[in-house]
Structure formats: structure tokens, C-alpha cells
């Protein structure tokens, strides 16, 4: 049997003998992607645990078993991990790393050693972020938004978190940079931009946001540190500084960041829908270009987080107007996906179930985003659970669901094995039901005026929190179940072969399963579109020795 990337690797330094060191020093994009996944998986348990802790605490009004300060630290920890450690690097660092070079027929990313370095930078960031849990002052209690002046005056250890967010930001920038150069330079000959798979388009648009938005939050965090320790004055009202400026700077990054999360996830959707409809995608170009325009418009709408901040009313109107324009390209994508199912042959494998489930949940998430883009309505709903429900529907029901879809979809590619479909489907249904039970009641609670970041609440809201709690239990059960299914599949799943889904894109044209170290045996010449099907069969076939087309 031929060697796979599990058997051999290139390393950044030297030629270590031990398997462990080979993993630690590897520059292979597939291994790095896997290591990212492993680390995120670990943190995800921390974040889920804190989320569960919050739900448990909120089961009834009044203090149950933690105090207010602990609760504040809990949602900060939850938000910081979920955003900076998990969802921002998430899809690009895991699936982008593993799949994107394969999709464009490259041997690796443009700067493999930088990729390795970035991974360790990310680890460093994670360590710094969590280190403050073990210091006396404790983890930051600012919320993931670090609003000044609260973050400048609190006695908890915000500096760690700020520094960590900065380091993680650097890692994110470097990932984006690496991918941009890779996509520009290393596409297989013949593959023009409009012959790239849509996942690559998603990664490309994301990479631009990583590159050109992250520095703003980087410098904002530095300014906050300088303010806190050197008193430069810019966020300190006692010196004439304006706290609202901090909010501007923070959201200039953090709004584009939400599109940074969702665009590669949309890319996953665009891979899965045609594959499991067994037909060419509807409106390839509009989907590709809508990714780009979402990224572009996404830069201009951060102010919709500041409707009640004291920002000028004129600015609010402009931001609100611009915000609506993000929904249009997003809508186009959704219609294109649904149209792709028309006259196809819909195969409801697990990845497809996740994708279709996401069409429901993200539509709810997105449309409620549109609700709070309306200024007058958002003045009421801002900082209530309505917003919280919106972004969990968007992030969990959008990004994370699609991430899971992608994990199921590319699992056989990465591992060479198949998980148990039946069990994977049960896990999906559990999570889908649990998720909606968990978050839908929160829309209602928010509409009635339940503010977020509340440790304690008025008895009227109890019913919503209780339904939500049971949803969380079901959801987390399904979640654990899903990981068990993955684990079992990895341990003793059946060999999947190179192309178990009958898919068309290049990553499924590998000489062996799992793929060898340097990917395709030869670089193919790409003179075809990414999703060419004829009567439900992939059109393009290769001789895997020479990578010449044989159809």
C-alpha cells in the first residue's frame, strides 16, 4: 500500500525520528489542519462546559450555585473561546488548511513553514488566554467585547485576555496572508478564478477580511493596554477620551469578523449541495461574487452594533441603510442553493442533512439579523436575548452547523474511513431539535425585554430559560453522540475509497486514501468547471498516476 500523510511528513526543523516530534514540527498542511482540529476540540469542551454552566445557573431566577462575578467570567470565557479560539480560526484553519490546497491542486500552501509557525502562535495565544484562569485576579469579566472603560477599570486579569486576543489575531492574519498568496500563486495550470471550487472562493474572501480587518482590532487591543498601563487618555473620559471610540474600533473588526466566520461556511454549503444533488450548481458566478460582495459590504456596517451607544443619529441611519445590503447577496446565495436542488437527485446523506438543516437555522438567524438592523426596533432589542438568539442562530446554527457538515463531508478524505451513517443521522436530529429548543425561546424572552449578560432575572422569564435549558441538554447530548460517532469511525470505520460521495472537485481525485504527503501524484491541468455532472455522474475522470483526463 502506498504511504499516506500519516506515514511520512516534512518538518520545519531537522529530521526527527519520533512520531510525536514529527507531528509537532510538521509543515504538511493536512497535518496542521488536523492539529488545529484537535486543539479546538479540546477548547470546545471548556466553552461548552461554561455555556452549560450558564444555562444551569439561569434555570431559575436568583443565585443557584455560582455568584455574579463567576457568571460574568463564565460568559466572557465562553465568548472569548468561542470567538477567538474557535470560530474565527475554525473553518479556515481546519478545513481551509486541509482541503483548500487539495482543491486547487497545490502541493502545500505557499509558506508551509509560516503555516507551522502560525499554528504555534495560535497555541501560544490559547495558553495566554487560559493562563489567567489560574492567576489570583482570575479570568477577565468584561464580556468578549472588552468595552472601555469597564475593561480598563476592572480588577480581573484582562491584560492576559487582551494580549491573547492580539496574538490570536496575528495568527489569523498570517493564515489569511498565507491563503491569499496560495490562491493567487499555486492554482493548478488552467484553473482560473472562475474555475475554482466555491469553498476556495469562500476562503479567499475570508482571507481578505482576516488580512484587512484584524489589524484594526490588534491595534485597538494595544491601545487599550497602553491606556490601562500608561494612561494615554484616549478612552478615559477624565482626560477627554471617548469610550464610544473604542466601540467603533472594536466593531470595525468584529463586524467583518462575523462574515469571516460565515463565508467559508457558506463555501462548505456550496460544495455539499451540488454533490448531493448530483448536478451542477445553479449560478456559480453569482455565488462566487456574492461572497466577495458580502466581504466588501461587511466592512461598512459595523455601526449597527452602536445604535444605542450615543453615536450620532445620522451615522445610525447610514449604517442601517448599508446593513440591509448585506442581506441581498446572502439571499442570492440561498436561492441559488435551493435552485440547485431543482431537478437534481437529492441524496440525504449526513452532510446534506446538516446543510439543509442549516438552510433553516441560518435563515432564521439571518432574518432576525435583519430585524435588529432596523434602528427603531433594535433600540428596543439591543443587548437583549433577542440579539443573543440572533447570533447563536447565525454562529451556531450557521457556521458551526456547516462546520459539522464539512467535518462529515471531508471525514473520509482525511481519515480514509467512513463513520456510521445511521448514528451520525441520529446525532444530527438530536442536535437540530435541541438547538431550536435551546435558542428559539430566547427570541421571545428578548422581545419582552430580557437583557443579556444577566446573572439574575425577573421571574416572568423563567419559563423561557427552562425550555432553553432542556434544549441545551438535548443539544449537548447530540453533540457528544456525534463526536463518539466520529471517534468510532476513525478507529474502526470501513475504508471509504478516494471518492465516496461521487464528488467532482479535485480533492476527491487522490491517488490513494488517505492522501499521500504531497497530495496529487502530478499536478493536473484544469480545463473544466468545478461541478460538472452528467446524468448524476462526475464528468471529469483522471488517471491517478499521471493525472491526465481520461473521460
Amino acid at each position, binding site marked *: 500500500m502506498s504511504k499516506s500523510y500519516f506515514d511520512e511528513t516534512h518538518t520545519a526543523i531537522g529530521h526527527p525520528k519520533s512520531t510525536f516530534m514529527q507531528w509537532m514540527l510538521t509543515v504538511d498542511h493536512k497535518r496542521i489542519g488536523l492539529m488545529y482540529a484537535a486543539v479546538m476540540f479540546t477548547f470546545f469542551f471548556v466553552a461548552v462546559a461554561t455555556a452549560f454552566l450558564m444555562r444551569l445557573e439561569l434555570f431559575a431566577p436568583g443565585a443557584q450555585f455560582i455568584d455574579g462575578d463567576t457568571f460574568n467570567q463564565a460568559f466572557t470565557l465562553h465568548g472569548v473561546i468561542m470567538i477567538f479560539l474557535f470560530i474565527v480560526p475554525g473553518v479556515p484553519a481546519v478545513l481551509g488548511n486541509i482541503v483548500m490546497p487539495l482543491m486547487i491542486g497545490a502541493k502545500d500552501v505557499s509558506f508551509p513553514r509560516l503555516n507551522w509557525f502560525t499554528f504555534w502562535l495560535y497555541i501560544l495565544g490559547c495558553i495566554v488566554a487560559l493562563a489567567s484562569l489560574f492567576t489570583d485576579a482570575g479570568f477577565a469579566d468584561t464580556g468578549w467585547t472588552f*468595552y472601555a472603560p*469597564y475593561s480598563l477599570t476592572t480588577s480581573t486579569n484582562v491584560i492576559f485576555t487582551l494580549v491573547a486576543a492580539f496574538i490570536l489575531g496575528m495568527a489569523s492574519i498570517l493564515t489569511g496572508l498565507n491563503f491569499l498568496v496560495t490562491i493567487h500563486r499555486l492554482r493548478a495550470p488552467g484553473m482560473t478564478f472562475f474555475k475554482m471550487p466555491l469553498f476556495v472562493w469562500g476562503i479567499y474572501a475570508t482571507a481578505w477580511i482576516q488580512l484587512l480587518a484584524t489589524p484594526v482590532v490588534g491595534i485597538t487591543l494595544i491601545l487599550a493596554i497602553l491606556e490601562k498601563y500608561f494612561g494615554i487618555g484616549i478612552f478615559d473620559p477624565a482626560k477627554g477620551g471617548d469610550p464610544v471610540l473604542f466601540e467603533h474600533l472594536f466593531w470595525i473588526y468584529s463586524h467583518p469578523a462575523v462574515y469571516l466566520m460565515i463565508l467559508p461556511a457558506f463555501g462548505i454549503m456550496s460544495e455539499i449541495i451540488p454533490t448531493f444533488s448530483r448536478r451542477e450548481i445553479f449560478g456559480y458566478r453569482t455565488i462566487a461574487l456574492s461572497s466577495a460582495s458580502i466581504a466588501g459590504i461587511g466592512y461598512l456596517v459595523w455601526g449597527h452594533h452602536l445604535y444605542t451607544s450615543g453615536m450620532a443619529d445620522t451615522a445610525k441611519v447610514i449604517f442601517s441603510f448599508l446593513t440591509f445590503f448585506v442581506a441581498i447577496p446572502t439571499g442570492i446565495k440561498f436561492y441559488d442553493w435551493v435552485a440547485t436542488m431543482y431537478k437534481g437527485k437529492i441524496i440525504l446523506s449526513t452532510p446534506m442533512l446538516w446543510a439543509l438543516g442549516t*438552510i433553516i437555522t441560518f435563515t432564521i438567524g439571518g432574518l432576525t439579523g435583519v430585524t435588529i438592523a*432596523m434602528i427603531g426596533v433594535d433600540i428596543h432589542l439591543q*443587548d437583549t436575548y433577542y440579539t443573543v438568539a440572533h447570533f447563536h442562530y447565525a454562529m451556531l446554527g450557521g457556521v458551526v452547523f456547516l462546520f459539522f457538515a464539512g467535518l462529515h463531508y471531508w471525514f473520509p478524505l482525511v481519515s480514509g474511513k467512513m463513520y456510521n451513517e445511521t448514528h451520525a443521522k441520529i446525532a444530527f436530529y438530536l442536535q437540530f431539535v435541541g438547538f431550536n429548543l435551546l435558542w428559539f425561546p430566547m427570541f421571545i424572552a428578548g422581545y419582552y425585554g430580557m*437583557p443579556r449578560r444577566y446573572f439574575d432575572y425577573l421571574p416572568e422569564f423563567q419559563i423561557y430559560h427552562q425550555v432553553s435549558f432542556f434544549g441545551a441538554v438535548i443539544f449537548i447530548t447530540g453533540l457528544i453522540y456525534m463526536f463518539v460517532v466520529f471517534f468510532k469511525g476513525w478507529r474502526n470505520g470501513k475504508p471509504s475509497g478516494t471518492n465516496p460521495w461521487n464528488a467532482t472537485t479535485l480533492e476527491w481525485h487522490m491517488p490513494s486514501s488517505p492522501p499521500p504527503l504531497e497530495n496529487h501524484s502530478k499536478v493536473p491541468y484544469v480545463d473544466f468547471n468545478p461541478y460538472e*455532472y452528467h446524468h448524476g455522474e462526475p464528468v471529469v475522470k483522471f488517471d491517478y498516476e499521471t493525472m491526465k483526463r481520461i473521460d
Partner: protein
Amino acid sequence: MDVNNTLQGFNTMAATFAKDVDQAFWINFWISVILGLSVIIPMFYFAWKYREKNVKDEDIENVTHNTALEIAWTLIPTAMLMVLFYYGYTSMQVLRTMPAESESIVVHVEGKKWSWKHTYEANKNGFVHKSKELYVPKDTNIILKMTAPLNDVIHAYFVPAFRMKEDVVPGRVTKQWFHSEKLGTYDVECAEYCGTRHSDMYTKINVIPKAEYEAWFEGNSKVGPGEKEVEKSKGQELYDDNGCAGCHSIDTDATLVGPSLKGIGAKHDATYLKDAIVTPDKDVPEGFTAGVMPPFALPDADVDALVDYMTTGK
């Protein structure tokens, strides 16, 4: 404040503009339902109609373009979005267009960790009402001018029953206004995260009949309308005014944010207590962290009065 507070009127529409906001919300709701179903119904239909068993491979068709449809699903949602923008904009305008001050009652609001204080303009006698809860007459424009102390953090004055909210920012003055047509007591919540007792930072708006309000406002009562005036020492007044109760209980042993001040006089002398108010970070009792209690730069006489109140209860 104990948590047996009940949120009153969260599903009522008490301010004049609440109906505009609700109208905007429900227009949005129905448009969202239409747009959402326009995606979800076809999805279910196709997933069922073209299910694996039903389709022969030869019947699959690669439809990739349909200009008319594509234009439709770009332009129709765009039009709907513009409708939503319009209602978002107009409902915001009623919320944000302040009435003339001459035709309104102006109240200054100070939000700080973790209490609210309302200060009225001086009445005919030159008396300035200060109150924790807000008392306003029915059918009158009220303008709130809000700010927070410079060394405090951001809060938000959120009145669910009125559908209004605006941040209270240190160093800035922000404003909002309302006009209530319904008598009643409505809850005010703090909606911007501000730390330990963020979720206890409630107060109330009492909308009362005009005459009752006038009588109260022109009088010199130190408590709200209809409440019995209790004799308060200067120290107690200061204790209330400065929001000490937001962090310290004085009648019970409960620890809120700072230590309970019950019987504090027996533990410490006056100098210590003075320092504890003026430079709180000097001596930090065990189990508490420095930097939480802000320094209070009060006149000496006031500090003395406070200390008296803490030690003697008067």
C-alpha cells in the same frame, strides 16, 4: 434590591412611540416569514420531489441559469428590505427627535455602579428633587439627560414597556425622551454590561396623574409622591445619594459587592472609615479586591456625616 421585583408592563405599550416600534417589528416579522418561507418551502419540496428513489439518473438536469428568476430574487427582496429600512428609520425618528425643552420636563439621570439617580430641575422654591425612582406625569413629554460619573463605566437606561433604550456614557451626555399615556409603574433595566451587579441595576418609572405630580414637584418632600416622609439624617441622605447601598448592605450582614457595613463602627475607628471612603484602596479588607470601590471626593463635612451614619445609624 432584592430580586422579587417583577417586571411590570414589559408587554404593554405605554409610551406614545411604542406602537410605532411594534408596528415596525411586526411588519418585519411578516416580511421575514414570507422571505424565509420562500427559501424553506422550495427546499422541502425539492428534497421530497427529487428524493433519491424518485429520480432516474437520466432525468437529472443541469439547470444553471434563469435570468428572470435571478432578477426576481434579487429585486423583490431588495424592495422589501427598503420597506424595512423605511420603518426602521421612521420608528427611530420618533424615538430620537427630542421635543422642545420648553414643552417638556427635563430630568437628569445619573447611572453608576450600580444604582440610578434622577435629579429634577429646581422647582419654584428652588428645591431640587432627587430620587431613585422616576416620577413623571401622564401625557407629558419627558426628556432624560443621562450621564455617568467619569470614573464609572457605561450603563444603559432601558425601559421595555416604552421600547426605549440609550447608553449612559461617562464623559458624554446622551438623551432620550418619552411621553406616556398610561398610568402605571414601569421597570427600568440596565442593559449595558457594567459588572458584578449589572443584573440588579433596576429602577422604576412611575407615571402618575398630572395633579398629583404637580403637588409633589412643587413641594419639598424628600421622598416620592404618596410616600410617607421619614426623617433622614444627613448621613443617611448622603448614603442614599451616593449609591452606597448599591454595594453595601447596612441593615443586614449580606455581602453585596463590598462588605456589609452593619456594625462597622464597632470594628473600625472614624479615621479608618474616612479613609475607606476617600481612598478606598488604602486598606482592603480580606476577601475583597482594590479598585472596585471608587474613591469619593466628598467635602469633609459630608464624610463625617457618613461616618456618623455608619457608626451610629444616624
